[in-house]
């Protein structure tokens, strides 16, 4: 069939770029391999290699550009474009379409490697050949993720966004739309996942992926060092990129936390979710690697561990890619991406580089230089080594628990993560955090090789005293009783104070050299902020609406939510809250809640919070929080439940529409309730003027007298039970002021019981929703710590680059 208006050429162009990127990555790796040999042909191989990598790099840019054009022009005939975008999507989210899809996120990763590769080509000098050989090999694997080639019949390598047309996709090919040759004009995309339509999601993924990409640098240098048997010369050149990785990956992870806090409704910034853990763990090992590389550069010890950590970090990045993209996390993480069938490929990728690293380490073990004398317990190297080991063990604990689905699959177990995983992880990680922050505090006070104990004690005593005092003060202010929390509070305050003291005393206030200390202060603040805001987090939305007629008593009843009805004012925490109504803006539904304080019986409005629900008929609604930031705490609120199904009904309800009838049996004197009145069955009468109601003389008629009371007035409703020619034909009675209608359906003459129905006008039904609100005390310490840590790390990198270029 001839389809009209398809833009097939651009797809073919993109596909050419994909193939080129793969082929030239492979060629670059091989040629750099030969260029790394010390023979006469090496220089010519290097030229071939350099050009191969450049062509590879430009092909990658070509892929990015082509895909961007396709997204920008809404070429929905391509399955990738259809899957991740639509016409009404704001343009600023077009970049997010790159990382919503698996193919796009691999592309992002590959892109960053190209940038890093171009930098290394210029700066790596004598290390260029072996390092680039490794990097190009990594690129070849990544490029293969986009190939979309079928081999041996059924097996597909990678997934190619340019070759899969929507109408040829196995899931969608058969639908009737494609019988129409002109289908392009009618086509619109699925659109972006509502969770990604958020500015955090335009900055967090690229930063995080750059962090991931940077871990390839220490890895490649470590491999190169082992390969060329130059065991210590790689440390210095690899340092700047390694610390840059620490900074960027750290910032990326923290951005993820900030996004979770601002945009998700689980109430916090860290959930020990597998996807979160999978990026945290490589960061921990990267920090360990970077510090060991740093001290090793000064005094050749613990070299083997430095190698091991550098290799391990990259392998953990691959493992985390495998975990999050293979679908194996399925039930344990609501973050997990779906399986695109690439898990086998990812596994091969992971195992290959793991084995490469292990084999090289084993082969070179004997040849590595050793230092004979043992490190003194009073040396900086010893404690930094201990610190790196603690980070490693901490990572092991996190990774082991996070990998439960993998153990399940390997050993046929049925382990499920505990309901309280946050408590479980915290119980392990809090002690580790304590140990690490203690080391961060005292590490710099140790000198290399050895420190006179007396001198050390003297220098450290001032920060210790200050920290103890501050800890006592804050523990008292915050009412802390948990000993472990107090310990961690002490150690994080100590880390910040001791490093600040180091800047003023040991460095003489020289800011330029203070990068590391500043970063350490930031780290201490992060842990302090995290500790306080999480341990003292308070849910303030207890259900105070008390609207129940019957009370359901349940053993595990969870009272974390408050029911807010439009027009009511309820106490919540330190405020009174009033739900004023819903607001519709585009696809978002905002629930406006006023926060009032009361003084002498007058209410003053302090502020308004509007948590929202982003409606998305195709992909499901998503609740997003609204948070009020104060200096010393945050009030975080989100929609736990909102009856949005009836939104359309409410908007369309005319003044005269009634709800479905509620039938009820009553004896004389019984009382029932409508949403706005009390209803009492007073009496029946049979003596009345039937003709007034159009009732025939032969018909049986009984009138019920119903008293209807609201706060201000008393009304009477008189529904009539009529039997006309053997059928029941009740006559309704209305109370218009209250929007109520009554009908009389049955009567039991024996015991005087009647059955009536009550209907309310739809406009009576007050709008409501269920909200959860929490207070996070002192959470600003966390965010300040993030900024300070990033700042300090960048300062240290710049200083190091400045020093090395002046030599």
């Amino acid at each position, binding site marked *: 069939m001839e389809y009209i208006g398809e833009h097939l050429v651009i797809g073919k162009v993109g596909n050419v770029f994909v193939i080129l990127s793969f082929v030239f990555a492979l060629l670059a790796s091989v040629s750099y391999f030969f260029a790394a040999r010390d023979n006469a042909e090496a220089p010519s191989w290097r030229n071939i290699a350099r050009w191969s990598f450049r062509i590879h790099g430009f092909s990658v840019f070509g892929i990015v550009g082509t895909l961007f054009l396709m997204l920008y022009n809404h070429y*929905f005939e391509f399955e990738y474009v259809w899957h991740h975008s639509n*016409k009404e999507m704001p343009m600023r989210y077009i970049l997010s379409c790159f990382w919503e899809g698996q193919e796009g996120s691999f592309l992002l990763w590959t892109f960053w490697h190209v940038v890093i590769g171009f930098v290394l080509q210029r700066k790596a000098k004598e290390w260029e050949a072996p390092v680039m050989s490794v990097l190009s090999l990594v690129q070849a694997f990544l490029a293969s993720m986009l190939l979309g080639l079928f081999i041996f019949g059924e097996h597909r390598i990678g997934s190619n966004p340019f070759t899969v047309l*929507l109408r040829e996709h196995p899931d*969608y090919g058969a*639908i009737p*739309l494609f019988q129409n040759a002109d289908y392009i004009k*009618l*086509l*619109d995309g*699925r659109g972006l*996942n509502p*969770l990604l339509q958020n500015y955090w999601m335009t900055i967090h993924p690229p930063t995080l992926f750059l962090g991931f990409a940077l871990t390839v640098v220490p890895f490649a240098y470590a491999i190169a060092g082992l390969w060329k048997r130059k065991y210590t010369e790689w440390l210095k050149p690899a340092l700047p990129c390694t610390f840059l990785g620490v900074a960027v990956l750290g910032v990326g992870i923290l951005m993820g936390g900030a996004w979770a806090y601002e945009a998700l409704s689980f109430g916090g910034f860290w959930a020990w979710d597998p996807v979160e853990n999978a990026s945290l763990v490589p960061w921990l090992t990267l920090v360990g690697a970077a510090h060991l590389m740093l001290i090793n550069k000064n005094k050749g010890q613990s070299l083997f561990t430095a190698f091991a950590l550098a290799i391990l970090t990259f392998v953990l990045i691959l493992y985390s890619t495998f975990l999050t993209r293979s679908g194996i996390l*399925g*039930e344990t993480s*609501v973050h997990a991406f*779906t399986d695109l069938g690439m898990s086998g490929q990812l596994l091969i990728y992971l195992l290959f580089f793991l084995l490469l690293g292990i084999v090289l380490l084993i082969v070179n073990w004997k040849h590595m230089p050793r230092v004979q004398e*043992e*490190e003194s*317990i009073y040396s900086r190297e*010893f404690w930094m080594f*201990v610190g790196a*080991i603690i980070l490693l*063990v901490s990572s*092991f*604990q996190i990774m*082991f*628990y996070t990998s*439960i689905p993998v153990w399940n699959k390997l050993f046929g177990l*049925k*382990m*499920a*993560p*505990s*309901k309280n995983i946050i408590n*479980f992880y915290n119980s*392990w990680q809090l002690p580790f955090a304590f140990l690490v922050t203690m080391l961060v505090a005292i590490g710099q006070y140790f000198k290399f090789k050895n420190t006179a104990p007396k001198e050390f004690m003297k220098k450290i005593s001032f920060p210790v005293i200050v920290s103890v005092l501050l800890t006592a003060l804050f523990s008292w202010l915050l009412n802390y009783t948990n000993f472990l929390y107090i310990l961690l509070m002490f150690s994080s305050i100590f880390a910040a104070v001791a490093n600040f003291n180091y800047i003023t005393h040991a460095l003489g206030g020289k800011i330029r050299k203070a990068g590391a200390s500043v970063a350490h202060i930031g780290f201490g603040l992060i842990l302090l902020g995290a500790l306080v805001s999480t341990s003292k987090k308070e849910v303030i939305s207890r*259900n105070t*609406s008390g*609207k*129940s007629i*019957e009370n*359901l008593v*349940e053993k*595990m*009843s*969870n009272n*974390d*939510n*408050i*029911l807010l*009805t439009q027009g009511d004012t309820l106490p919540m925490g330190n405020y009174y809250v009033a739900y004023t109504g819903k607001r519709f803006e585009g696809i978002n539904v905002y629930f406006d809640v006023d926060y009032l304080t009361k003084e002498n019986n007058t209410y003053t409005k302090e502020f308004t919070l509007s948590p929202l*629900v982003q409606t998305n008929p*195709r*992909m*499901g*609604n998503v609740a997003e929080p609204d948070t009020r930031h104060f200096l010393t705490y945050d009030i975080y609120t989100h929609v*736990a*439940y*909102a009856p949005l199904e009836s939104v359309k009904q409410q908007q369309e309800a005319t003044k005269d529409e009634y709800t479905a009838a509620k039938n009820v049996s009553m004896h004389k004197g019984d009382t029932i309730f409508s949403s706005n009145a009390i209803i009492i069955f007073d009496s029946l009468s049979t003596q009345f003027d039937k003709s007034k109601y159009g009732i025939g003389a032969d018909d049986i008629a009984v009138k019920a007298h119903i008293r209807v009371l609201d706060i201000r007035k008393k009304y009477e409703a008189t529904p009539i039970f009529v039997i006309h020619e053997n059928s029941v034909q009740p006559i309704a009675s209305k109370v218009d002021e209250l929007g109520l209608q009554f009908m009389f359906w049955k009567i039991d003459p024996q015991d005087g019981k009647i059955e009536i129905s009550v209907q309310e006008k739809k406009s009576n039904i007050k709008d409501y929703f*269920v909200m959860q609100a929490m207070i996070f005390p002192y959470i600003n310490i966390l965010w300040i710590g993030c900024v300070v840590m990033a700042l300090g790390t960048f300062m240290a990198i710049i200083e190091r680059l400045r020093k090395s270029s002046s030599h």
Partner: protein
Amino acid sequence: MKKIHILGIVIIAVAIGAILTTLNSTSTYASFREASEAPDNEFHVVGKLDKTKEAVYDPKTDANVFSFYMIDNAGTEKKVILHKSKPQDFERSEQIVLIGKAEGDEFHASEILMKCPSKYNDGKPQASN
């Protein structure tokens, strides 16, 4: 002993501790039947919502109680009482994981995880309006 060896032993001890506590603190995936046989223990039960039976959520009475019927992967159906508010888009869920205990003929869940395919897989191409 060399300091490095002491360190090594400590690390291995801690690592073993991590493994053991992991194995001890996990819950188990089970079916409704298995959960009923051990009514005091907490289990994870995986299943699907029974859309033919009614799901009751009346926040005006109690905003933290939601009941529905679920069929687990072994085919057993049970009434479930969830002690939380009704999750958004509950009807769209393709798979549900409940965390809770069996109590008599019902299952009382304190946590729920849902898998909604509509975010990633679902949705046939449609003509734009």
